[in-house]
């Protein structure tokens, strides 16, 4: 069953996806992984701040805030 592959940034509030990978190999990527944005984890977009940036996500049972610059580096499979 092929699912559309997109980045975390493209999720709308209430939508969920499964993390495929975090792009890049710099410290930002390392921090995202440290914070539990691991391949296979399910992540949900909770809502956006005023002016659309940053956004709040629910992953690993907690809430995390990411700017668009960061969330566009997280590749996900869209979940229903």
């Amino acid at each position, binding site marked *: 069953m092929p699912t559309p592959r997109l980045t975390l940034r493209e999720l709308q509030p209430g939508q969920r996806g499964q993390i495929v990978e975090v792009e890049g*190999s*710099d*410290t*930002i*990527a*390392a*921090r*995202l*992984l*440290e*914070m*539990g944005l*691991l391949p296979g984890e399910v992540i949900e977009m*909770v*809502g*956006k*701040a*005023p*002016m*659309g*940036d*940053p956004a*709040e996500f*629910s992953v*690993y*049972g*907690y*809430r*995390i*805030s*990411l*700017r668009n*610059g*960061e969330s566009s580096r997280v590749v996900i499979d869209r979940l229903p």
Partner: protein
Amino acid sequence: MSNSQISIALIGNPNTGKSSLFNALCGSKARVGNYPGVTVEHKTGRMQGSASVPFSAPIEIIDLPGTYSLAARSADEAVSVDVLSGSMADVPRPDAVVVIVDATHIERNLYLFSQVLELGLPTLIALNMWDRVAATGATVDPEMLAERLGIKIVCTNAAKREGIEELRAAIVALAQAERTNNHPERDGTAGRASDAFPEPFRTEVDGLQHWLLEHDVSLQRFQVERLVIDASDAHAQRAIPTALNAACAQRILEIRERLAAAGVSVPLFETKARYGWVRERTAGTLSRAIERPKSMSDTIDRWLTHRWIGLLFFLVLMFFIFQSITLVASWPMDAIEGVQGFASSVIESWIAPGPLRSLLVDGVVAGVGSVLIFLPQIAILFLFIAILEDCGYMSRAAFVMDKFMSSIGMSGKSFLPLMSSFACAIPGIMATRTIDNRMDRMVTLLIAPLMSCSARLPVYVLMVSAFVPDVRYAGGWITLQGIVLFGMQCLGAVVAIPVAWLLKRYFFRGIPSTFIMELASYKWPSWRVTFARVWERVLAFISRAGSLIFVTTVLVWAAAYFPGDHSQVNAQSLRLETLQSQPEVPEDEVSDLENSIRIEKSRLIDASLLGMAGRAIEPAVRPLGWDGRIGVAVLASFPAREVIIATLGTIYALGSETDETSDGLKEQMRAATWPDGRPVFTLATAFSIMVFFALCAQCASTLMIIYRETNSWFWPFFSFSYMTILAYVGAMLAYNLTSLWQL
């Protein structure tokens, strides 16, 4: 390390209840907040004994700032790493480590644990917030997990003080174990996550460690690994002597190139290896909640972080706080003022007119007393900030404000430091350590002193209550004075916007920052923690009034009293008091006497050192609408701005018509005149003074903390200069604009 003293470090992710646990263990008043990074500096406390846990030696507990990883990327995380590796000055390397793990987020928390384990210190886990596990529908088997990890696990609920006795006992047992690198339990079963690091990396680390040893640099393996993994990070390299720095950096660069060629992706392989290790060990010991039910916290969050409602809520909240400061604080203020008047009259009935009585009444009571009057307002302000921090709202405010903050050169993470600067710039500046981007941190740190701190509040309140008309709207719930006060509180923050933008543009251009931040669940603020916090600040305020402000007040009193022959005025005062104590007061004689006392006192203060200094600086402060006395009072308040109240109190008490200080500074200020009879204090003068105080860097402690945090004299000097210029220009504008508007 001394032989008798044993020290234990507490480390954990932010929001794991670490500071609560520290409080429970030590019974101390360490600050706890529901915001990532409230413990910005390590705190130490002594573990208290109990009947069931006997001690053979004192045990010191070091509370470290929360961190997700030992790859120190912000200044507060660096503190944790330094303490644990023993490279922090004046803190001995801990003998053992307690890792606090949030029982509802075990896997993520064990990432840090896997790093701590490699430091080679005896380690145990406190599985905190244990009571929440059942509520989420997850299951955890602590015994099995402990066996897998090869360490002891104690289940605790720090907030409810549960499991603390067991933890104490475990800490004592751990402390009694020898500090050793081959802890049999641990190495026997668990192994290390770094065993799973790729072979090429391990070989390179061996090589680098060997090379460093040849140059007489002996580092633990963990530190060498960090050098290679966090190459772009200055922190790990601090352990390398300066002479070797360039050569070492070059070597690391080559190592990374070779690793990349071998297909090892630095730094990602580390997170992969560690989470792999964590998953292997937790497999079968815990199950996660299938579907997280929508909690109360989520519902509140939907509204408070809503695009528009969130922003509106924030502004209304701030307005409400400053309104309530003016409304609620007025009655305890009247009470304190009453005590002040009573103290003066007691002293007057005991001591005859003369230098000693003048020192006590005009110097100490009028000076220090007029500062202490503002205690209720400062307590209320700190109460609000403590509640907001503890309930978890602050991180939402940071989230809501991030876009705006980043557009002027900072990030949402700058928000908490700036918000705490509304209470006091010193904790605010220290809290900038939680900002991981250095450029953002510098900008935040330099504009923090512009936020309207609680020491400015007394100045505003005095001026506003004396010179802004008491007009009330909406049935008395909104006051004009409250609105002006709110405006003054905002002024510094508004001016800070262009300042931040300019600083970013000309001094701190750099890589764009990130905003990866955990938003912790809301909780009811703990009253114990909140009141402890307020109490701490109130004590600090009182002790400042008792030391720095007291000394300045006495100096100003002396300058206004000497030189000068007070014998005539003393004799007249004595005569006046005798007349007033008679059954039938002769009104005419009293008013004549009062008049001549007023003229004589005014002559004395003009002839005093202070009067001379006032005349000398008057030309410089005239454009601001001030007379020489205000000029001197402001000059005296450069070490600490709240001194202005005390010095004005002293100056006007000395120059006032009677020795009666109970009619208050406000009345005395209203009565002050220029030589031609015009009042000195008008609305324009009041605004000019308020604007000057809003923008000026009148706080020696703040400048010292800027020096400490930037490790350079340039930045405190820079802050002082730019803020003083800003204050002078701003006050001049305020004076002229208000004067124009009043015509």
